[in-house]
């Protein structure tokens, strides 16, 4: 059997396990109707204003930097695996590649994208 079918089986089993747990709980848990119980929890007070508001932009800049670095890693892993076969030229090329990305990190740092304000 293919390896990936096995992985898929484990993923489905994870869903099934959680579904059984939640389902079992749904069957036996007590039910009491109470309007106040279904209110949003906020230390006893009614909530004021909408909750789904706009984010602090700082979260977005971190996410952007993350995406750039995540793509970099995509290229670093295959390079690391075939390190010995690639020899010296592979080493130099990858160092240039990493250097360009470090330059990007340095620029983000300089522009204050890494500061939490």
């Amino acid at each position, binding site marked *: *059997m293919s390896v990936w079918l096995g992985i898929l089986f484990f993923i489905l089993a*994870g869903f099934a396990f*959680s579904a059984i747990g939640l389902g079992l709980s749904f069957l036996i848990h007590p039910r*009491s109707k109470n309007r106040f119980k279904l209110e949003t929890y906020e230390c006893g007070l009614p909530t004021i204003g909408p909750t*789904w508001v706009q984010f602090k932009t*700082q979260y977005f800049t971190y996410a952007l930097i*993350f995406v750039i670095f995540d793509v970099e*890693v995509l290229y670093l892993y295959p390079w690391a695996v075939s390190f010995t076969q690639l020899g010296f030229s592979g*080493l130099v090329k990858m160092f240039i590649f990493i250097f360009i990305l470090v330059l990007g990190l340095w620029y983000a740092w300089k522009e204050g994208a*890494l500061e939490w304000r």
Partner: protein
Amino acid sequence: MLENIFVSSLNWLKNLMAAVELPAPLADMLILVIKLAAILGFILINALWLVYMERKVSAFIQGRIGPNRVGPFGLLQTTMDVLKLISKEIIIPAAADKKLFLLAPLMIFVPPLAIFAIVPFGKGMAAIDLNLGVYYFVAMASLSTVIIWMAGWSSNNKYALLGGMRVVAQMVSYEMPLILSMIGVIILTGTLNMNGIIQAQEKVWFIFLQPVAATIYLIAALAETNRTPFDLVEGESEIISGPFTEYSGMGFAFFFLAEYANVLLVSVMATTLFFGGWLAPFGWTFLPSWFWFIFKVYIMVFIFMWVRWTFPRIRVDQLMGFAWKVLVPLAIANIFLTGLGKYLFLS
């Protein structure tokens, strides 16, 4: 004899199934189910035990006694807690996005379980021997971020939303040093397979060749599992319980289970990558390989708990600054040095 007890019992079963001429796909399926049951049992028993251990360790550090009422030495405490949680009502707040609210606890346990499928628990004891091992770990582990964010967003609660945003910022930032620190090890081994990485440590463990990577990995792993000093996500004193504020009963129990499964998982990965996995230290092979594996994992878990009950929580700007300004540059420098070192000395 003890060494091969699991492998040979599985082989015996395979032979038995061949003897009764079970069709091959059905036999494969049955083997997979047995492996799944074993891993699920392993995770559940260890998660129950880890909660108990955490409470005992914290009690020891703080000079208390800890749970000691339910069962001998309080050993049944967490089992009873789970039974209590099952019988509690699952409250879905009127304002919540109901589908996502229920989907999050349904999915949260999937990534850890799927990763445990490729963990080599002992010599030849990986349920699925995956060539992509470490890469698969990275891909699967990052899914947890989305699921916790789902919980935070769908609750429609201000604390939950704040906690959810912190989860995304923190886990995404610390994923970078985590991934980069593993590359040093992969340069040395030239394989992503977890068994291959362990066998490459026959002579010397990678903690001695990659001390910087190991340190970065441990710090980032603490942040990835949202444990103190990086537990801003569910800082009880500021945002109640973060994304899990609105969850009750079994929904909460699954988040709790997943948290401890993740603690176990990062300890397992640390053991595999840096501490020689199931290899016996000093050639002490009189104890079976799976014993050594569990032993090392528990030492790692104990270190995580020790850190948790020793350090205070850090501030959010310190948290993000530390990841991007210290750990990422350090991890990149480590890749540089490892690459140069391997080229100069080993090839």
